[in-house]
């Protein structure tokens, strides 16, 4: 009898060799621009984010060098203002968010038991937009054109009157383009977690990190739009004089603070939660046990995310708010400590029930505990209004936020980098520089920021470039600066250690930590295709449940091991139960994401040099490239259900009513809804509290406008529906499409009526807001019209059939959104005029 082991090994090797050419990126230089594999994209994200971390760190050292002694001549106030503004901007926007996105892109497919993320090209697009936007911000800094009004850009300081250069524009346009990248990543993550998982991976069996990152992605979709709106308003005010924040013309500077902190406070949790997800993933492995209270942790994550949206005003406690308003937000701010504590106790309990081992990732997690708990407690102190008033805008707040962000984010992420190093590089740590780096960094951190708390309590204001000798802060600041430089050395050692171990350390063995989750089921480093076949799982720790699972996956005993169709396939499952539902065909390598990123970034950044024409042309380029991109997807013939392996046949994801594009659109429209809601909030805010309201007159709606709006919305709701049903029945969709176009034209006509009636948006914030509402309608009508044109072309080219109605359903979704929000926008514009 022959030994079956070599045969099985050969079987695995054969499958590996078949999968490699299908999933590999181009090995030539152009491969860098055309790859959309999650290993490549995530790796590039990680490297670029680390470079930005180093830049942000150098800026921090400049700040500490300046503050090390009183009356320092190291920097003048102009340079100092740019440096602290850029330090905050770089760390928050260019490092923290992209770094965890990178980790999610790299790890999520493996954890979920799928082969790649749902929209690989969207991931590549997000990467390039981030690189271009981030580089523009850094180049502007090197040219001395940085913003200098703080990372929060408060008007009127950031208005054209008080900041006349292009510094604020660099911030507003550069950062907004990066937010586009974050939203792209969030759409990708949400759809991946909800639909792209291993067979049998129900919601209850998802790895805990998937829950964290799902919640965070939804938070990005709902927290970033207010910021994007705020940036749009401020940029339009600076460029064209529309007075959203100018009190004398009906605006209010506090509107910016509301929009900014509606984003800014959830942002703190957007940064913290992925790190917490890493802890919840790594800690049980380090403790050789399972996470205690999985369901409670999931509940805590969801609770923390939603509660975090009710805290934004605690950044505005000193702006003159009635007692009751202060009490609402003070109470909400204290409440978030509860779900955070649930997580902390879950982790302590996990340690308690396990047998912890003090490996390097564990060291950094212990550093997290010691630091984050202090940061959390000073957060509760800041939630109490009288204390908040005392330390507002002092170094106490700076110290608190660094305890939360470095302790709560950077330390766990370093733990994660070390923990996943074998998976990402195929190497086990050999050089032990990491331990030395830890023992330098963490004590130095506490030296720096404990001292800074003290300086703040003694009254040292933040964002001031120097202080007087004899203030009593000299030794405290010197101590903080010494600590900061030591901390920088520690971080440099960490980066050096990771680089050296990546390049030259010994090869790692499979699953070196003995983890139970699926990302460790692959060979090391994880191959481009991820898993050789999609496994069937029956628990949260599949590798613990079945020690042979990794080998069975490699031998192709899961789903989609057949490579004969010679294309990138992965499994789509039902959202709740994880039952196999569809076969997704992922797109191959393409330069389109790179080109789309070039034109997108050009459209954002060209206005910085006054090239509005180029910006407009680039915007047309965005539409053209996006259409070419979409055109390449789908098929001209029905393929029918395909063999998914294990005796199961499944429909292709292009031949179902809810293809991946429909889900992505749904998530994008969630962000769009919040953007629209923020616009309505801004309008209501100005109407309610802005000093110079009411405007000289309100817009009075005419009967024709109302009829156009109502009929247009109805036609836009009905037309695409009719077209989709016609396609489903095998009939021509033309009557429905014509009706939809007529509806779009009518709605656009109603919006145009507003602009014609109020020709001067620079006169009063009310008129400016009306133009924005009309602009919302106009923009969405334009998008819908383009999509209707696209659908027409797809029908003519044979890309639709009763099976392939996905395109029509996506257009229907966008048309519904346009019709409904268009009606609300027009009603909001007319309402004050109706009631006087």
């Amino acid at each position, binding site marked *: 009898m022959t030994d079956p082991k070599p045969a099985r090994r050969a079987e695995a090797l054969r499958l590996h060799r078949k999968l490699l050419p299908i999933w590999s990126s181009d090995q030539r230089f152009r491969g860098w621009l055309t790859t959309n594999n999650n290993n490549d994209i995530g790796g590039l994200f990680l490297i670029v984010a680390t470079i930005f971390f180093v830049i942000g760190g150098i800026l921090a050292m400049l700040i500490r060098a300046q503050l090390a002694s009183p009356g320092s001549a190291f920097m003048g106030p102009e340079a100092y203002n740019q440096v602290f503004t850029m330090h905050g901007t770089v760390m928050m926007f260019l490092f923290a968010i992209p770094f965890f996105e990178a980790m999610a892109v790299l790890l999520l497919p493996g954890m979920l038991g799928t082969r790649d993320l749902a929209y690989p090209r969207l991931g590549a697009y997000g990467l390039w937009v981030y690189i271009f936007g981030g580089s523009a911000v850094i180049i502007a800094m090197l040219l001395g054109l940085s913003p200098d009004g703080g990372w929060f850009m408060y008007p009127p300081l950031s208005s054209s009157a008080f900041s006349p250069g292009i510094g604020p524009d660099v911030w507003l346009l550069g950062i907004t383009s990066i937010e586009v990248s974050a939203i792209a990543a969030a759409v990708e993550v949400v759809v991946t977690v909800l639909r792209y998982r291993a067979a049998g991976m129900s919601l*209850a069996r998802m790895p805990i990190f998937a829950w964290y990152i799902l919640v965070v992605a939804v938070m990005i979709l709902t927290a970033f739009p207010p910021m994007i709106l705020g940036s749009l308003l401020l940029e339009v005010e600076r460029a064209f004089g529309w007075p959203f924040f100018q009190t004398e013309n009906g605006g209010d500077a506090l509107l910016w603070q509301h929009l900014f902190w509606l984003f800014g406070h959830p942002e703190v949790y957007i940064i913290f939660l992925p790190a917490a997800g890493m802890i919840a993933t790594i800690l049980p492995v380090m403790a050789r046990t399972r996470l205690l209270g999985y369901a409670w942790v999931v*509940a805590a994550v969801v609770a923390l995310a939603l509660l975090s949206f009710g805290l934004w*005003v605690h950044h505005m406690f000193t702006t003159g708010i009635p*007692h*009751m308003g202060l009490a609402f937000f003070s109470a909400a701010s204290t409440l978030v400590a509860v779900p955070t504590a649930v997580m902390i106790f879950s982790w302590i309990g996990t340690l308690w029930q396990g047998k912890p081992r003090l490996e390097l990732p564990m060291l950094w997690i212990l550093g997290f505990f010691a630091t984050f708990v202090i940061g959390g407690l000073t957060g509760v102190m800041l939630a109490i209004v009288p204390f908040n008033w005392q330390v507002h805008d002092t170094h106490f707040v700076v110290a608190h936020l660094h305890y939360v962000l470095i302790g709560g984010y950077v330390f766990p992420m370093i733990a994660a980098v070390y923990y996943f190093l074998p998976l990402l590089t195929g190497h086990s740590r050999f050089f032990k520089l990491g331990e030395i780096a830890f023992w330098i960094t963490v004590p130095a951190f506490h030296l720096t920021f404990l001292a800074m708390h003290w300086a703040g309590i003694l009254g040292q204001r933040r964002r001031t470039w120097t202080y007087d000798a004899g203030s009593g802060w000299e030794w405290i600041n010197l101590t903080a600066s010494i600590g900061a430089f030591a901390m920088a050395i520690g971080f440099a050692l960490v980066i050096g250690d990771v680089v050296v171990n990546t390049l030259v350390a010994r090869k790692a063995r499979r699953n070196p930590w003995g983890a139970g989750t699926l990302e460790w089921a692959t060979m090391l480093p994880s191959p481009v295709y991820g898993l050789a076949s999609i496994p069937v799982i029956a628990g949260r720790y599949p590798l613990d449940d079945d020690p042979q699972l990794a080998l069975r996956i490699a031998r192709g005993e899961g789903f989609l091991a057949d490579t004969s169709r010679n294309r990138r396939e992965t499994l789509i499952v039902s*959202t709740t139960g994880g039952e196999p539902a569809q076969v997704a065909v992922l797109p191959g390598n393409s330069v389109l994401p790179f080109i789309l990123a070039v034109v997108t970034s050009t459209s954002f950044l060209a206005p910085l040099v006054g090239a509005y024409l180029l910006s407009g042309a680039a915007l047309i380029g965005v539409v053209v490239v996006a259409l070419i991109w979409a055109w390449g997807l789908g098929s001209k013939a029905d393929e029918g259900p395909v063999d998914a392996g294990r005796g199961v046949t499944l429909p292709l994801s292009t031949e179902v009513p809810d293809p991946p594009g429909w889900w992505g659109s749904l998530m994008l429209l969630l962000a769009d809804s919040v953007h629209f809601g923020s616009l309505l909030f801004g309008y209501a805010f100005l109407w309610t509290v802005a000093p110079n309201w009411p405007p000289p007159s309100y817009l009075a709606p005419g009967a024709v406008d109302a009829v156009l709006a109502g009929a247009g919305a109805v036609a836009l709701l009905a037309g695409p529906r009719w077209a989709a049903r016609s396609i489903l029945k095998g009939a021509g969709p033309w009557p429905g499409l014509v009706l939809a176009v007529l509806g779009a034209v009518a709605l656009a006509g109603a919006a145009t009526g507003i602009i014609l009636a109020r020709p001067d948006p620079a006169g009063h914030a009310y008129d400016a807001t009306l133009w924005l509402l009309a602009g919302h309608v106009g923009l969405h009508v334009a998008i819908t019209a383009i999509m209707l044109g696209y659908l027409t072309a797809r029908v003519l080219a044979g890309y639709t059939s009763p099976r392939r109605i996905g395109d029509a359903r996506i257009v229907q979704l966008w048309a519904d959104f346009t019709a409904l929000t268009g009606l609300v926008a027009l009603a909001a514009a007319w309402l004050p005029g109706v009631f006087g």
Partner: protein
Amino acid sequence: MTDIARLSVPLTLWLISFSGLYGLHGLVCSGHWTRLAGSGAEVAGQTALIAGFLAALLVQAVAVAVLWTQRFGGPPGFVRTTSLALALVALVATLWTLGPSVALPACAWPSATVAG
């Protein structure tokens, strides 16, 4: 998606009621309210806020009751337990964060601000 809705709806309702009541508070303390309610503006404002608070509590209580049923809460298991826990959290959050509408005058400003 039904399970995702079960998990997310209770605290989303809290967020809506929290933002709504804060918006109402802004309106009550604005000149529009005085024009609308006339001489009894202060009492009317306080009453409206308390009514809003009670309505928010009622909505949360209904959410808990609905999720308690087998029909809407789903079969026993992870989602049911977690969504019920989150519904209770939303109820407590409503009580805790919007409770000040009963305990404090609607439009009293901190004295330092008034002086400023």
